């Protein structure tokens, strides 16, 4: 393990371009959201956001493509491989902490804030604000029903959420089978199992969209429906975005397998995506338990 063979890339244009694209996305999103809230259109913000997103997509494609080329030229040593592994592991840890903030919010609200509003404990004094409010979870009756009309109904965990749990858990199994087949160099089977994983992932997203439509149209469970709706949508929403990203990454991995990338003993790109997919799955188990079930 000498660092003699550690590949230090030459200068690169990708990072500065990506910074510009990120700035366009952030400034565009800010302008768009502000204009939406002020009801003043927001065309320029939308254009900036779309332009930035398009550029970011192209840049990331180019940047990752560059890395893949370098890897396929054999420029990367085992030590480089370990750098990527550490990088991806810590990135996933940062994602875990991102979700931890929202789970922490949910637990704090459920076990402390709402009971206090209802008059419980030392802090019962805050009950004076809305004296006829009584605490419950899920919170159907918010303290101020005019400002935040609580939901009329809830998602039944034993229908779509249970189905989605089965879909995601199964997809974690199928991606693992694909990984084993890759190690055995049975490539057509790898593609098959990956395709199945992707199908399960997209099915999850479709069912999640159906669930959102039901929540909005029939149950009055919206972002505006008080703290239950807020925690429900921020947790499931960010999870859904991560599933979407993970599914896209799986699609790219499958295309790479079709193109003949990856070797039985050298396929970190594949493993990184599968790690990410397992992470998304584990988050869902937490969601199913604490958002839907308990």
């Amino acid at each position: 393990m000498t660092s003699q063979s550690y590949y230090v890339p030459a200068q690169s244009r990708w990072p500065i371009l990506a910074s510009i694209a990120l700035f366009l996305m952030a400034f565009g999103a800010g302008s768009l959201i502000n204009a939406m809230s002020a009801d003043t259109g927001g065309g320029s913000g939308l254009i900036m956001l779309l332009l930035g997103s398009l550029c970011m997509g192209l840049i990331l494609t180019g940047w990752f493509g560059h890395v893949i080329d370098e890897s396929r030229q054999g420029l990367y040593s085992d030590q480089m491989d370990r750098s990527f592994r550490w990088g991806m592991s810590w990135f996933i840890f940062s994602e875990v902490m991102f979700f931890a903030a929202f789970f922490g919010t949910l637990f704090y609200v459920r076990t402390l804030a709402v009971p206090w509003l209802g008059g419980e404990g030392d802090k019962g004094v805050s009950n004076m604000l809305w004296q006829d409010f009584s605490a419950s979870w899920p919170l159907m009756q918010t303290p101020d029903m005019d400002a935040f009309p609580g939901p009329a109904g809830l998602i039944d965990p034993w229908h779509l959420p249970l189905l989605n749990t089965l879909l995601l858990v199964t997809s974690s199994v199928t991606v693992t089978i694909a990984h084993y087949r890759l190690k055995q160099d049975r490539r057509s089977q790898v593609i098959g199992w990956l395709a199945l994983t992707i199908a399960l992932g997209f099915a999850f997203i479709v069912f999640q969209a159906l669930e959102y439509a039901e929540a909005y149209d029939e149950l009055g469970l919206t972002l505006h429906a008080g703290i239950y709706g807020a925690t429900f949508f921020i947790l499931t929403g960010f999870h859904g975005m991560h599933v979407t990203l993970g599914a896209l990454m799986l699609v790219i991995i499958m295309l790479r397998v079709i193109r003949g990338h990856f070797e039985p003993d050298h396929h970190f790109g594949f493993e990184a995506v599968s790690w990410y997919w397992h992470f998304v799955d584990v988050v869902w188990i937490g969601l199913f338990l604490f958002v839907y079930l308990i």
Partner: protein
Amino acid sequence: MGSVEHAVSETEQHGPAKGITRWLYTTNHKDIGTLYLLFSLLMFFVGGCMALTIRAELFQPGLQLIVPEFFNQMTTMHGLIMVFGAVMPAFVGLANWMIPMMVGAPDMALPRMNNWSFWILPFAFSMMLSTLFMAGGGPNFGWTFYAPLSTTYAPPSVTFFIFAVHMMGISSIMGAINVIATILNMRAPGMKLMDMPLFVWTWLITAFLLIAVMPVLAGVVTMMLMDIHFDTSFFNAAGGGDPVLFQHVFWFFGHPEVYIMILPAFGVVSEIIPTFARKRLFGYVSMVYATSSIAILSFIVWAHHMFTVGMPLAGELFFMFTTMLIAVPTGVKVFNWIATMFRGSMTFETPMLFALAFVVLFTIGGFSGLMLAIAPADFQYHDTYFVVAHFHYVLVPGSIFSIMAAAYYWLPKWTGHMYNETMGKLHFWLSFIGVNVTFFPMHFLGLAGMPRRIPDYALQFSDFNMVATFGAFLFGFSQLIFVYNLVCCIRSGEKATARVWEGSHGLEWTLPSPPPYHSFTEPPELDKNNTGQS
């Protein structure tokens, strides 16, 4: 494997490119370190000008120079710029320059991502500073941006503030991942974790803290964005949420954040004191364990920032005792620094002066922190100038002095020239006097009841405020000496040797000054003189 050798020889010969593209496209840890440090210096002056605006307004009671709305924007921006723009990037810059040289690596583990981590920052801070010119003014709710001031009552520019914070978070997380990957994977063969210099150790732990809490900051600003624009009620009790929830999530990020700004400072001081005491660091292993303990404790003390918010008694007690516990590992560190100097052959070059001032003045800041940790006493101190005095003592003669010490200590290594020692000493003494004249009177102001974040105050606070303003201007303008010394040192000056300091230890001193563009293209041989402990 032919292509491997080809690629390596290409990078070996690859010196810096010419012109601006060297800086825009660079993948070199030294170039990126320099960019971070210069950016931090720029932000230090931007944030410093805001501080002087605040102090000028507070020179006398009554409203003289600026309107209260602008005063609030100044206190907010000063805090945000100094925390996220000056102190954090300075330490990342030091990490970039020093860690590969200290562990015997050719570069950082992920050089292109390293460039991206840096170049996000100028865009993020341009966006944040641009809010000052937007309709309704910039963020005016304090750097801690408590809801509902930052949600219901915020100016529209808060949206851009939120996205700027997201960008800084992305930058910090990528930077921290890079540091961890470098430390865990790029050490010279044979260098065990317990052989690493203490600066590397403190950065390993800091990087862990960054990856753990920057996403939580992203989470809390996202909830703000949702509350402001998408009708949620996270921080609104009318919908069943809680404004205090904001404070809990923010300080869950915020307390580890203050250790992110001080742990690398501990590392710097632990490098400098042994060099100028000409002794090995006393208690290396206990330093490592103390740093780790502080990092772990930082996750269970956050609500000591919120003693007066109305927590249950059990919460007050829990957070009071855990906070006091932090004094133990911190005391271990201070003891070790002093024991290192005990019977050492000390000399007092500029880096050592800054490091010594760090030990003394940081300890004062630590003690006032201990006072604030006492929940019943905090009811008196909360949101007064005593708090301002406390955190400025740990951040200015704490973090900033350690950054100055690091700059003087490693400048000869970076530039190949010695800085002007007389000017360095002048800079130190004026800074030392300026800092104490500025912030020491604030203890008295706070104990006497002057609230923080106000543009006007009762007449009995006049004298101490006047003194503090004199001190602030002295401190602020003294920093120009540093800039002049820096420019002179980059351009010319006495040639520095590889070792630079008589008592220096560590791999970075085995490289020539200035070091080659790629630090260690071949892994160095280790001996007891170039590892962290002997």
